[in-house]
């Protein structure tokens, strides 16, 4: 019966393509939108991922996510260093500061201050210069996107494109000079501001005078030290919050999940894709069955059982489902590939393929089910009706 089912399905090319297009559309929406969502959500904690070395992040106990800076007193650094099981602990400054550009305009930048001696927490990829160059006086490193775009210099020729910042160019941060000694590549974060790296002590001179400037303490546990026990000790001794890298990522991720409209918006789009996909595919598939109802009636009259007809319909549904899914996922991947250098967030982990696969599977089952019900209820006596 299988070849009969397949020939029946492909006999009407228009309908066949219609069903496949509906399923392709649904698979595309259910793959591409979640991929953007996953990509976006990964950006919320990409700064934490980039700072690879430390095991534990220590911060004020009220901090809710990575960009939620609640500065601590500098003395906390020394208290943490004194806790047993701590191999090293380094300060990190993170804050939004206004930078005066060459043309006099101001641009808010994300300034990261790294421990003067070790420079722990610096960018993973340097495009020009080295991280060690930060030890020169007034040295700063800027990220490539910022250098090319928001921090770029106006061209001396009127109407020409801006010129990217280069080594040796200078910026002005809170009346202090910063000289570019390197260009880094950083993973895109949720914030669109340019990122400027400098040393911790220089960051303090750039920042407005305040009593507290220590944003994070980055801690490495001694070998064989259980990080969770160390976290418990840090919390008990200092009253600060402490997380593993993974724990801090989750804190940040959960904050965005709970407190922003992002999950709801994407949830709505994905649900709409599912519903519209179900409607289109279900409708066209049901129509297809209705148009062939006489053929099913003839098969029934000739003694085909409901089980045989059900298998035929399922086979048809599985076939169009697989083709639609393949095309949809392919298009989504193509979209991700085309957008790989753009600002677009896009991540397509295998779990997502399972997700959209299950979604399309459901659509096909629903579509097939209404057709199957129709065929099961069908009276074979219709074959003698004209």
């Amino acid at each position, binding site marked *: 019966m299988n070849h*009969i089912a397949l020939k029946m399905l492909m006999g009407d090319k228009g309908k066949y393509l219609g069903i496949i297009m509906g399923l392709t559309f649904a698979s595309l929406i259910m793959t591409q939108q979640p991929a953007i969502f996953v990509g976006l959500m990964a950006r919320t904690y990409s700064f934490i991922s980039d700072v690879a070395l430390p095991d534990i992040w220590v911060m004020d106990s009220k901090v809710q996510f990575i960009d939620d800076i609640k500065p601590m007193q500098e003395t906390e650094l020394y208290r943490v260093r004194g806790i047993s099981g701590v191999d090293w602990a380094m300060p990190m400054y993170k804050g939004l500061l206004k930078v005066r550009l060459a043309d006099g305009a101001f641009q808010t930048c994300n300034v990261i201050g790294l421990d003067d001696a070790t420079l722990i927490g610096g960018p993973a990829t340097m495009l020009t210069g080295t991280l060690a160059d930060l030890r020169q006086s007034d040295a700063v490193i800027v990220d490539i996107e910022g250098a090319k775009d928001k921090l770029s210099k106006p061209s001396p020729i009127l109407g020409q494109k801006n010129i990217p910042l280069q080594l040796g160019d200078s910026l002005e941060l809170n009346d202090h000079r910063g000289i570019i000694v390197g260009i880094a590549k950083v993973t895109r974060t949720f914030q669109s501001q340019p990122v400027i790296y400098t040393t911790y002590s220089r960051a303090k001179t750039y920042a407005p005078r305040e009593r507290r400037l220590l944003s994070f303490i980055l801690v490495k546990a001694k070998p064989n030290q259980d990080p969770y026990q160390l976290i418990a000790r840090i919390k008990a001794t200092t009253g600060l919050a402490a997380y593993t890298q993974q724990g801090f990522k989750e804190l940040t991720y959960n904050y965005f999940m709970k407190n922003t409209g992002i999950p709801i918006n994407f949830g709505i789009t994905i649900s709409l894709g599912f519903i519209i996909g179900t409607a289109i595919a279900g409708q066209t598939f049901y129509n297809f069955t209705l148009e062939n109802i006489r053929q099913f009636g003839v098969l029934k009259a*000739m003694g*085909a*059982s409901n089980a045989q007809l059900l298998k035929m319909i399922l086979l048809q549904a599985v076939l169009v489902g697989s083709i639609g899914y393949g095309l949809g996922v392919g298009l989504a991947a193509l979209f991700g590939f085309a957008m790989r250098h753009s600002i677009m967030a896009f991540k397509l982990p295998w779990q997502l393929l399972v997700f959209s696969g299950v979604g399309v599977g459901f659509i096909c089952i629903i579509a097939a089910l209404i057709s199957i019900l129709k065929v099961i209820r069908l*009276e074979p006596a219709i074959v*003698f009706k004209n």
Partner: protein
Amino acid sequence: MNSAISCQNIIKTYSTDGQLVTALNGINIEIGLGELMMLVGPSGCGKTTLISIIAGILNQDSGQCLLFGENFQALTNTQQLRFRAHNIGFVFQAYNLLPALNAIENVSVPLIITGTKRAVAEQKAKEILEQMGLSDRMKALPAQLSGGQQQRVAIARALVHSPRLIVCDEPTSALDHKSGHIIMSLLKSIALQHDRALVIVTHDARIFGFADRIAEMDDGHIIKISTTASAEAN
């Protein structure tokens, strides 16, 4: 003469929008093995309803139909399906071929339904299509065939699994005189055998001569069964 079909006091009522229509009102009919029985009568008199019940695709409200000695309505659903799949061949006015299948594939469908391997089924289909004089049109789709050719494919399909009963509803009414004649000759010469019965519903007076007996119906009753000249000549 052994009885192929024996129906007693068949009553069938349809209800549409609360309106009851008695399509069959106490039908008694015997059809013998090796017999070609025609059902004739005015439109709406119940011919199609009667062959639907005889062919086991419609249940009567009361009365009993024995098909080759088997009380069809007393069988379970699965048994009914099996019985139909093995014993009954259908020919329709509108041919009802599957449009996406070529002639061979269409003819092999009844064998596929009973679980015959595709290659075996198609071989059998070829042989019977040859008997129907369609050797050169085996790979054609229904849309590529004339009405008469499509009906010959449909007859091949009705015969391919060697059923014991063949039911035809208006097999010639969509055809011109010559094609109708060919169809009836094929039905009579190839389909009709000593262990088989043929029931043909028709309006088409041009083919009455092919019948052994003709049952005239009116308003849900059989009003007259006559033996034709051709049958008497045999």
